[in-house]
């Protein structure tokens, strides 16, 4: 298994290089650093000196991929592509436009993001697997039918609606919790309740329905029929046989997002004013801070690849037939 993990990590390298190529093309080739500088400094009245100063501050004052002015290997190393890419691979993301170190920001903002994303993730998993099991238990009855109807209706509501109406009723009308904000320590709880609850509710329809289809598919298999023929009660079939066999598809969907929880949720964080990575990204998008967006794209794919490796490892934990060799 250890060999397998090592191999997977090596497989991840070409993918990360590919991601780096994509971000490089997006951020430096589609628009040259000159374009970006002009955009940031104002389109019309901008002097060439201001542009070159802007570029120099960010280290964009070199050729893109090939530097003819240098000697030997430096023809390739003294370029934006090489310098920015190697920095990315050692997690040196450079500085944001406000002069702060991006890597440091990411480190401090990870925890608030996690404080919301982790409870949401766990609650969604537990609550909706339970609901789905219940619907499958009562399948082909009115409970199942209206459950599906409710799921489809909930799926059709925009997540923005949950956030806005939650903020309006719970915080503004009934004054139960603060509308937005964040603080460390014990106070954290009262700021977290609403985003977590809304995060859980907004995933209700899609998650329940997805788990239900997984369980239904499992219910149609031969071993369930055998178990039923043996005379096992429905509850034991459901919880002991179906649930355990359905773990693989559930894990496929769930484990892969665990590392991504660090990135937090873009929408919820900016609505509730939580200083996490999600709101950091939104602020960067709105202020057109290219370095931050680029760092977040790279970090996101890095975490996703870790998630894929974790998924494979989790398979061996729930299914003894799978061994990673």
């Amino acid at each position, binding site marked *: 298994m250890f060999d397998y993990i090592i191999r997977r990590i090596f497989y991840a390298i070409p993918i990360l290089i590919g*991601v780096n190529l994509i971000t490089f093309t997006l951020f430096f080739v*589609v628009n040259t650093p000159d374009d970006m500088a002009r955009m940031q400094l104002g389109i019309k009245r901008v002097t060439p000196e201001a542009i070159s100063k802007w570029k120099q501050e960010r280290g964009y004052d070199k050729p893109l991929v090939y530097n003819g002015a240098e000697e030997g290997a430096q023809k390739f190393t003294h370029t934006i592509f090489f310098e920015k890419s190697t920095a990315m691979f050692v997690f040196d993301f450079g500085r944001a436009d406000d002069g702060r170190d991006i890597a440091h920001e990411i480190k401090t903002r990870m925890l608030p993001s996690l404080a919301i994303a982790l409870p949401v993730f766990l609650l969604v998993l537990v609550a909706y697997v339970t609901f789905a099991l219940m619907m499958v238990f009562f399948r082909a009855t009115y409970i199942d039918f209206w459950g599906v109807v409710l799921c489809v209706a909930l799926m059709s509501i*925009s997540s923005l609606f949950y956030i806005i109406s939650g903020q309006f009723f719970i915080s503004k009308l009934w004054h139960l919790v603060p509308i937005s904000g964040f603080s460390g320590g014990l106070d954290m709880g009262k700021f977290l309740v609403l985003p977590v609850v809304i995060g859980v509710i907004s995933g209700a329809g899609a998650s329940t329905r997805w788990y239900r289809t997984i369980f239904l598919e499992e219910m149609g298999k031969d071993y369930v029929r055998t178990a039923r023929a043996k005379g096992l009660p429905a509850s034991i079939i459901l919880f002991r046989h179906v649930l355990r066999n359905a773990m693989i598809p559930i894990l496929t969907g769930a484990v892969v997002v665990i590392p991504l929880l660090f990135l937090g949720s873009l929408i919820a964080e900016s609505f509730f004013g939580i200083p996490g990575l999600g709101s950091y990204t939104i602020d960067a998008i709105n202020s057109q801070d290219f370095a931050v967006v680029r760092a977040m794209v790279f970090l996101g794919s890095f975490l996703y690849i870790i998630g894929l490796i974790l998924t494979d490892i989790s398979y061996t934990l729930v299914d003894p037939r799978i061994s990673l060799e």
Partner: protein
Amino acid sequence: MTFKPVILWTDALIYLLLVVVIIFAWYVRRNEHLLAPWRRVGHSVSGMMALTVLILFISIGLLDTIHFRPSVQANGSTNNKIYGVQVLSLFDVIATPLRINIEKTYSAPFATHLYTRETIEFSEGKQVREFPRLEFGGAHLRNPEEQFVADVTWRTVAGLSLGLFVWSAFVILLVMLMAYRSGKEFMQTLSAILRNETEVPWNAVFRMLALIFSLLGIALSLSACYHIFGTDKVGQDVFYQSLKSIRTGLVIGTLTTLMMLPFALLLGIMAGYFRGWIDDVIQYIYTTLSSIPSVLLIAATVLMMQVYMETHPELFDTIAVRADLRLLFLCIILGVTSWTGLCRLLRGETLKIREMEYIQAAHSFGVSHWRIISRHILPNVMHIVLIATVMDFSGLVLAEAVLSYVGVGVDPSMISFGTMINAARLEMAREPMVWWALLSSFTFMFTLVLSANLFADAVQDAFNPRVRTLSFINRKIVPR
């Protein structure tokens, strides 16, 4: 009034899509084996009711797609016509009263007075701060406090009866057509529908149509004299904006799929069919693309597109063209980021199909690769493409709202559900709250997405594929 037709990029693509759909429908009608699953869709009650609502939305969207630039009255010379920079659509012309009756600022639904106080100066020089009357909303009432209830009731009843009248005419026409086509008596057909004995659930469809027509009638008669969903910050009618948003939602939902289909089909089938290094390369491409979280990739790409548009302003001659191109780019970007899921599915399916005996037989007869793919493989994966298309639609409409909120959605000058919600959200803290724009956009979006979801379910049930893998695509698009 003379006009100059304008075909924006998205318009052209919508026309293209329409042509493709018509050709597809014509082809399906001629082939019984293709028609069979569509019959099953036609027998689903919820599916047909949803389709009825969808057709209403689509027709509004299509009316809003036919664009032109009206001529501006030139002084004296009639030969030299000048066309305004404002691009209007056929829908704008139909909804002219809604479009041009602009108040000063916010007003609540059915309000006769403005939302904010203003200083009014009387002729004697006395000044009073009060809520002024609206210029258009309820302007025909001399004494709103007394006449309002009676007027609204009267107009509702009138609108309702108009709607029901048009509905019965429409139903009679439709039943006559059905009777003519099946060669039965009119009364026979009608009673079969009334007793709900038809294969296609016409009974349910007609009930849905009754609801739609009466709502339309009421909305028409009331919105002639009131702002039935209020007005927004610059005094524009929210009902008009909600109707305009429909086209944006439809464009995002359909054109994105149109953009991604060529990629997904070509690459997915190639990877599964040829295997070997082609498979490796394609798998590498989609693994890399899908490993970037989709919201971040979309955000980064839209950001770069914004820079490009800012630094190349000479490419766009009117605001409408600019907004439209941005919408198109958004569709392309959403397409590029979301083709990977479908591509993976198609690759898997092709891998399975290429081992079938009939493919081996085709190989041994010396049929070319291209012909095997187009004759034997493509038709056998089409159901996956179809289901993915209808399932993605609702996710994309929802995604538009979220993306516009994040600031990477449609152009701020383009009316869409996302921009409406975004503008209304900023007024949440007002006292009393400005709630009508939010409610209206959420209601319209909910109706559109719900009917799309129900229709997608009906299609999926009819084509009976492996449900799970496909519902996974749908989960990925909506950024959370």
